[in-house]
């Protein structure tokens, strides 16, 4: 029963949500809005399930020997801090919750991603090789954009930024557009298979 019912529910929801695109009527729009509302609640509950899983995993790690124990404690401290501040003092302007977000969480996240500036430079030096015609085109396109999209490109030659604009607006668009069309067709086919019950991986191992 727990295999057939979800497949039927999926089919009904899928057919209705696809059909409503073409039907302009009050009750249909209302039901459509209601289903969208359900989707948001389900999404948040799924997110909370994931968060609970992370918390239980970190609690388990505390009982392990070695440095992992201390790192798990730090992670749990971070979770507890935000929960206490958020529910205790609110999330409005001037709240300690937003203070921690602004002074610790956001700068740390930015710093982690900025590390990639160093690694991308290292990777470019080691791996960006023009070994054959295709890779030579790749390297050339990267160099043109690297120089042409910053002021130094304009100093080298006024044609550099113009060339970059053309490269971005014609050949690069052509490739990306072909990829978009391919993805669009592929996703449509997958969506139809999901609604028809031919694709059930979302149900997990018991769904097959």
């Amino acid at each position, binding site marked *: 029963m727990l295999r057939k019912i979800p497949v039927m529910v999926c089919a009904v929801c899928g057919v209705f949500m696809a059909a409503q*695109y073409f039907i302009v009527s009050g009750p249909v*729009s209302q039901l*459509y*809005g209601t289903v*969208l*509302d359900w*989707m*948001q609640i*389900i*999404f*948040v509950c799924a*997110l909370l399930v994931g968060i609970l899983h992370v918390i239980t995993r970190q609690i388990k790690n505390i009982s392990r020997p070695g440095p992992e124990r201390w790192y798990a404690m730090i992670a749990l401290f971070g979770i507890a801090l935000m929960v206490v501040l958020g529910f205790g003092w609110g*999330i*409005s*302007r001037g709240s300690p919750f*937003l203070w921690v*977000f*602004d002074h610790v*969480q*956001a700068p740390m*996240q*930015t710093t*982690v*991603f*900025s590390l990639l*500036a*160093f690694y*991308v*430079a*290292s990777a*470019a*030096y*080691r791996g*960006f*090789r*023009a070994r054959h015609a295709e890779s030579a085109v790749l*390297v050339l396109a*990267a*160099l043109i954009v*690297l*120089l042409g*999209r*910053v*002021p*130094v490109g*304009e*100093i080298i030659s006024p044609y550099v*930024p113009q060339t970059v*604009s053309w490269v*971005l*607006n014609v050949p*690069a*668009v052509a490739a*990306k*557009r072909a990829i*978009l069309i391919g993805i669009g067709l592929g996703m449509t086919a997958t969506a139809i298979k999901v609604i028809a019950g031919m694709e059930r991986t979302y149900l997990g191992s018991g769904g097959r």
Partner: protein
Amino acid sequence: MKLDRRIIFMIVALAVVVPLLFPLGLPVAVTDETRAVYERLERLEQGSVVMLSFDHEASSLPEVRPLAEAILNHCFRRNIRVVGLALFAEGAAVGYDILHDLAARHDKQYGHDYAYLGYRPQYTAAILGMGESIREVFPTDYDDTPYDDIPLLREIRNYGDIGLVVSVADGSLPTYWVEYAQARYGQEIIAALTAVMVTAYAPYVDAGQISGVLGGLKGAAEYEILLGRHAAGKRGMDAQSLAHLSIAVMIVIGNVVAFGLRRKNETTEAGGHSS
């Protein structure tokens, strides 16, 4: 040629730090793409409403903050009203801060000149839901004030009352705005993107599905020039130039060295065969 990666790291760090300490004042030219976004906002009537969606994580803050500030400066200067929201959880706090900061700088009043709806998850449902009723998707604003208690929001039912949506994004969210708000409801979209996403959206601009793209710190710097301002985006352009130049030089050196080694190996092999 073997090179300790920490030397490469040092080169990149110096390329960024030195021009920040000793600015070069390189000229920044405004691209047609940025000018198109600026002119679109110029054409909006005073009093019309722009929906600014903070569709990004906190990790891209140094890029998205100048972009959002540039758009907001323009909107508030022209007395265009702004409704902010976030479709990523971390964008919620970032958007809340930026919108209030900029509104304070321009003496704008909350509830009349701007409002902040907060965060909604599951962007497909949120974007589609707002096409029917924004009030249903956001029953309250970020600070729990009921939707109908905010005068600006009382005037807004759905996309029909929104002049322009600006998605400040570091990922694929503008795609969903195009697929669900533009294709379904005909809502006009502009994307203010981190540089890494710019090439992904060029086909949408070419097809007219997105009215314009403002890209990265450079895009923000160009926009500031059009606004006659000098702020974060423009300050970083010298560092951006030198860092790009250093990486480009490293790519060229890496290729020259690899080519030389390949030639040397081929010569050695040829010599070995002939002997």
